[in-house]
């Protein structure tokens, strides 16, 4: 599992300081060791790949960039062979193609405000019974087997189903969504023309769903966006489509990864698993610790103008990765940063980002993660990695197990 996608235009990484590639499968497999080594040598790694990309790995530097919207733009948040500046038709800053994640101040705040009420804790809490039922159905489907894939048979279905219901999209299109998410987030190193084709397919799908909601309005997020206003005007169809793409892409791989990594931890750490089974009151700190230690999401920024960042000569339109997961493992910010302590009470982690782009779906993501772990443990109080099978990790900015075969050693029922 250490070969690059055969379609990649780049070769294997030769040096993590000067030629890193976060889409080389060995990056996510060895991420913690790589960040730790870089922290000790150069805290900002560089690569010529993707047209020039930087990777700061300390909490201080990640924090600084996340807050600095003057020098760093969110116009592009997924590092790829295609840069926003390469696309003549791309929607420029401060709006970007998928508001609010691709937006900069001052527009960002107004686009974000539209969506905030739909994702506030009190609105999201109402989804708990439905998410629990969904988890139980998924578990019932795999109840009898000795070996189950906790990623493909369980984790991945939860965010896909929930977001399809929220947007009012056909639930049977789940497989399609996962394909789109893969194209956007994992297939980043294709030849640029191939990447553009993938985006066209996604745009066409969304346009069709939006048209269906215009023709047959109903009570869901898509119609909510179609009715929403900004500066007293209805949102443009482009804005609606961009926000929908964002909600579809942002919630799926991320949450799937968080659930998968948490179950991977419990499969490989029987003491923690038993403690959680015996003492469910530990769940809140355990969930925050899984989010810290296995934070799935690295974001990106685009350098606005040439800028000397702590001695690094960044050029206009260079990419900068924002590895919140690396910040979460910085020993300067966290005691015993490399240990996973499920009762860690002081845990100022940045899994959901820092500053104005704080994950809009964080309340939903936490709810899905907690309910998924609770239900899996309730059904399978004892499980471990299946012997002779391999765990497969994702590639790119979202880190989590894509295949997680576990052997069930005890089940309730």
């Amino acid at each position, binding site marked *: 599992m250490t070969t690059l996608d055969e379609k990649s235009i780049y070769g294997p990484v030769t040096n993590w300081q000067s030629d890193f590639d976060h889409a080389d499968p060995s990056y996510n497999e060895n991420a913690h060791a790589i960040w730790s080594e870089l922290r000790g040598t150069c805290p900002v790694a560089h690569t010529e790949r993707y047209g020039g990309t930087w990777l700061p790995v300390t909490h201080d530097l990640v924090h600084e960039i996340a807050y600095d919207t003057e020098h760093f733009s969110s116009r592009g948040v997924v590092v790829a062979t295609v840069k926003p500046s390469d696309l003549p038709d791309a929607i420029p800053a401060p709006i970007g193609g998928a508001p609010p994640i691709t937006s900069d101040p001052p527009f960002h705040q107004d686009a974000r405000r539209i969506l905030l*009420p739909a994702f*506030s*804790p009190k609105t999201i809490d109402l989804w708990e019974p439905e998410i629990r039922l969904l988890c139980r159905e998924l578990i019932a489907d795999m109840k009898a087997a000795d070996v189950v894939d906790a990623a493909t048979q369980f984790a991945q279905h939860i965010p896909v189903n929930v977001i399809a219901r929220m947007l009012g999209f056909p639930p049977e299109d789940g497989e399609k969504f996962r394909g789109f998410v893969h194209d956007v987030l994992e297939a980043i190193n294709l030849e640029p023309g191939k990447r553009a084709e993938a985006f066209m397919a996604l745009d066409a799908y969304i346009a069709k769903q939006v048209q269906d909601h215009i023709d047959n309005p109903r009570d869901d997020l898509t119609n909510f966006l179609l009715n929403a206003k900004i500066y007293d005007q209805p949102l443009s169809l482009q804005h609606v489509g961009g926000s929908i793409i964002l909600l579809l892409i942002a919630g799926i791989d991320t949450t799937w990864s968080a659930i998968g990594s948490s179950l991977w931890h419990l499969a490989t750490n029987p003491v923690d698993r038993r403690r959680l089974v015996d003492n469910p009151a530990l769940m*809140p700190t355990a969930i925050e610790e899984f989010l810290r230690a296995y934070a799935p999401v690295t974001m990106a920024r685009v350098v606005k103008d040439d800028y000397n960042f702590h001695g690094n000569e960044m050029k206009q339109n260079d990419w900068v990765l924002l590895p919140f997961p690396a910040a979460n493992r910085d020993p300067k910010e966290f005691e015993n940063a490399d240990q996973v302590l499920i009762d860690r009470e002081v*845990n100022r982690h940045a899994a959901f980002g820092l*500053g104005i782009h*704080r994950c809009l779906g964080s309340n939903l993501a936490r709810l899905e993660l907690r309910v998924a772990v609770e239900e899996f443990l309730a059904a399978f109080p004892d499980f471990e990695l299946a012997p002779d099978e391999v765990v497969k990790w994702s590639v790119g900015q979202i880190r989590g197990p894509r295949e997680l075969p576990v052997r069930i050693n005890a089940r309730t029922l």
Partner: protein
Amino acid sequence: MKVQVDQSKCQGHNRCYAIAPELFDVDDLGNAFAIGDGVVEPHLAEKARLAVANCPEYAISIVEE
């Protein structure tokens, strides 16, 4: 002892509301505010300190009176 949320820093991570719902509430946008005048009863002092220590945006402060 009182808790205060700096609205210009709060980004709605909701860690405070999860840790100490007795002391913090959230508005429709998901941003936090201290309940009432922010006064912390002695039995909630530890929770108040944990909320401060877990806020990713350093938005909460404790004022000793």
